[in-house]
């Protein structure tokens, strides 16, 4: 099944920094965005 999908070349440690910096401007500056993202990722995987 995975073979049909594009290789996204993900790197968790680097990528959450990118998402936090470039994609989450709706969060207040005081939010720990990486901690928020880490919890969010586990929540999404546990649905």
């Amino acid at each position, binding site marked *: 099944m995975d073979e049909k999908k594009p290789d996204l070349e993900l790197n968790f440690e680097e990528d959450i920094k990118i998402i936090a910096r470039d994609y989450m401007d709706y969060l207040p500056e005081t939010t720990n965005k990486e901690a928020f993202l880490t919890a*969010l990722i586990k929540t999404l*995987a546990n649905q």
Partner: protein
Amino acid sequence: MNHEICPNPEQKRKETREIILGAVRDDMKRIRIPIYSNAWTWKVCDAGYKLSDAMHDYDVMFDAVCQHHEKYHFDMYNDLGTRNPIRMAEAAGTCTYFIDDARNTISIKDRERMYKDEYDEFLESGHAKFCFEKVLPRLANYSSREDMFQKIANAGREQLEMAAYTRRINKQFRDVYGVPTMTSGRFGFPSDTLFSYLRGLRGISMDFRRNEKYIVPALERINEGNSIDKVLDALPAKEEFCFAVRTVSLSHTLMNPKQFEKYLWPYMKKFADAIVERDLTAFIWQEGNIGHLYEFFQELPSGHFALLGELDDIREMKKKLPNLTMVGGMSENLLSTGTPEQCVDYAKRLIDEVGYDGKYIFSTNKMLSYANDARSENMRAVNDFVREYGVIK
């Protein structure tokens, strides 16, 4: 819809909390058998809404949940419409929910999200990294890294929307209806994460035979950062909730007593010790049966834990586990097909045989989900009866 207003919500909340805790704690007066709502998707249908509408529109969900309270006046609610954050999962592209409006159900397909030969990688990566790099791309069809990043960010925005709904409905119940908050949070055992969300029920059944050496290390890896002490440290003042936390477990249904002792009990024991040490209470929800595991539950100290055993005979549990407050017992089959008189008779026997010492919370065993799981007039009749007959003399 205009919603009713309780004349003195603060007083009512305080009194109801004492009724609920009185059924659990040994150092508080037992006042009355509390009535607990185990209604999930049923309440949406009962309010006249389609499940898919309520799951996607928080105003609709708000009204459905409020109607549920105003019709039946339970003392305590497990779900205020926050159980399945489908909008978040859809925004992330990872949605595995399937809503069936005709049957009024929401279901999730059991599947392997971590493959049997990936344990070493999981142990090396840890839970969050593995979920990000492996699980989410398996659940979604991301076209590129940027697509994935944007969708995860969108899910974060939806999480804030969900949090806003949660605050709104909690405020309505607390400050308008005078209903105490049932629990301050949830606590999950790592075996449920491994079984339900990584290996799937079929996968883990094979791992018991072929990958056994990986199970304990994987549970330990999942449990990192999942400390009960961390959860309890973050609790608000005790007066703000009835139970400090609620646990929901399904993974024990696949385990024999030896496996339970190895894979789940160490975490449950640590959790229970922390609750007792801080003199708190917890609500333990065990899906399926626990009849083969009574010897473990007998070790939990009295006065701290309420137990809902979904498929167990509550009279048998009461005999075997006098240390715990029993939850459940009402037949949803009778609520669905019986007359109000039959339902009230059944409820009376439960109170006489299970609630005679006040260590009992009245409810259905099973979650009310389908439209036909209960008739409205039966639910009203039973709750009215239990509220009067359940007073401890």
